[in-house]
């Protein structure tokens, strides 16, 4: 099998990048796309050239480390699959693949196909937590959860924070990611106390990172390797707007100094 690669090569954020063509006759249909990159890299190292930098870890679609654009689609042509789960048999013989890093202002490029996704960590830090009581673990099943809610929370919790939703979005919006985190915790009883504040803080954090707005085009849902449904965005909007309308976090503090006269003199 012959596959040609056009890979985005960029030595550092400051230097300009460009597509460089690599061809290999060693490709097999059973090879994964990342294995093809390994083969190309071994060849580059043999020739004394700089290998292609790309992120990967588990290579079975559960860690969210890998990810780049393949022919303009985040994680390549398959639904519900990360870039590491794409095999060369998913492409035509003789095809040219354009590999390009995920692009967004909030995802600064580090090198070649590697980007910095810590903006997603900062969104989680802004509100992706629940308060728990210290002390003994609570009795199991103390709080009952309707089956549908548990399923919806689990669907949202499948997010592996790979950044594909942002990469695929025409507006570089983090709505699916942020919505997944908000839905995941907001659907469960443990997540209720912070529900409004969480939506406010995570949406604001996403905006502060420089992610764009959602136009509900649906690209994120199709790109997501965990197929997280668009409804998480609707949930995010609902929780955010409800918290805004309630005036959440704006309750004025009321302090009366003890000893203040009861009647104004």
């Amino acid at each position, binding site marked *: 099998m012959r596959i040609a690669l056009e890979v985005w090569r960029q030595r550092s954020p400051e230097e300009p990048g460009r597509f460089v063509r690599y061809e290999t006759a060693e490709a097999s249909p059973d090879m994964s796309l990342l294995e093809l990159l390994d083969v190309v890299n071994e060849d580059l190292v043999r020739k004394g050239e700089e290998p292609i930098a790309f992120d990967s870890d588990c290579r079975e679609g559960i860690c969210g480390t890998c990810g780049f654009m393949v022919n303009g689609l985040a994680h390549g042509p398959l639904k519900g699959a990360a870039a590491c789960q794409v095999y060369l048999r998913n492409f035509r013989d003789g095809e040219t693949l354009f590999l390009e890093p995920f692009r967004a202002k909030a995802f600064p490029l580090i090198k070649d196909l590697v980007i910095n996704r810590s903006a997603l960590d900062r969104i989680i830090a802004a509100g992706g937590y629940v308060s728990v009581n210290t002390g003994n673990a609570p009795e199991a099943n103390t709080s009952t959860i309707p089956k549908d809610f548990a399923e919806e929370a689990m669907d949202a919790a499948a997010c592996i924070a790979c950044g594909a939703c942002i990469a695929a979005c025409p507006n*570089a919006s983090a709505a699916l990611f942020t919505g997944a985190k908000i839905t995941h915790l907001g659907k469960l009883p443990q997540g209720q106390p912070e529900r409004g504040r969480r939506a406010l803080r995570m*949406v604001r954090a996403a905006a502060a990172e420089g992610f764009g707005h959602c*136009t509900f085009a649906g690209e994120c849902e199709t790109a997501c390797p965990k197929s997280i449904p668009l409804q998480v965005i609707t949930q995010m909007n609902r929780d955010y707007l409800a918290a805004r309308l309630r005036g959440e976090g704006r309750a004025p503090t009321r302090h009366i100094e003890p000893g203040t006269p009861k009647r104004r003199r």
Partner: protein
Amino acid sequence: MATSVEIGATSVTKKALMAVSGIVLTVYVVLHFAGNLLYFAGPEALDAYAALLHRNAALLWSARAVLFASFCVHVVVALDLYMRKQVARPISYGRYERAASSLGARTMIWTGLVLLGFVVYHVLHLTLGFAHPAYVPGRVYSNVSVAFASVVPTVIYVVSMIALGLHVSHGVLAMTQSLGLTLRRDRLRGLQRLSVILALIVALGLAAIPITALALSLTRGR
């Protein structure tokens, strides 16, 4: 960035503004469409309907004020969001494919700009009577017939109604999610179909009027 600070708030709030103003505009388009269908009932019916609308000046002008305000909000916030899009992805992709977006979703800003131009033209054309060969206030049927006796306005109107159909087909769907209303997947599918059907009805119905008027004038002229 400066413009977004003026309007303030996050994109979720801005999209809610888009949705609320979009609802007002959609309701207006549907009512306007329903009223305009009286064109097919003949000159008396259409002119009587126009007179009815003008009977209560206070009501007419408050409706116009709400419409104008919604229109301004819709346009200004849309342009603000569109400009933020470039800020969010300063370096564009060498290759980028849209796998899921509907035609309406892809062309939202462009159909919106077409409609912006159309609304200005339409008001000058058939409400104020500038850019019209023989405008008589209150004689709506004859104004329409004369206006669409030539090909150019007819083409402008039909193209604009295609843009309206595309815009509504995505807008009606998107406004419900911007307001957090459709949480169930099966209902979302239904809504998707509903918005496409509504868009088709409104666009075809409204485009039929200039086409009919042109056809009538052509057959009469022969």
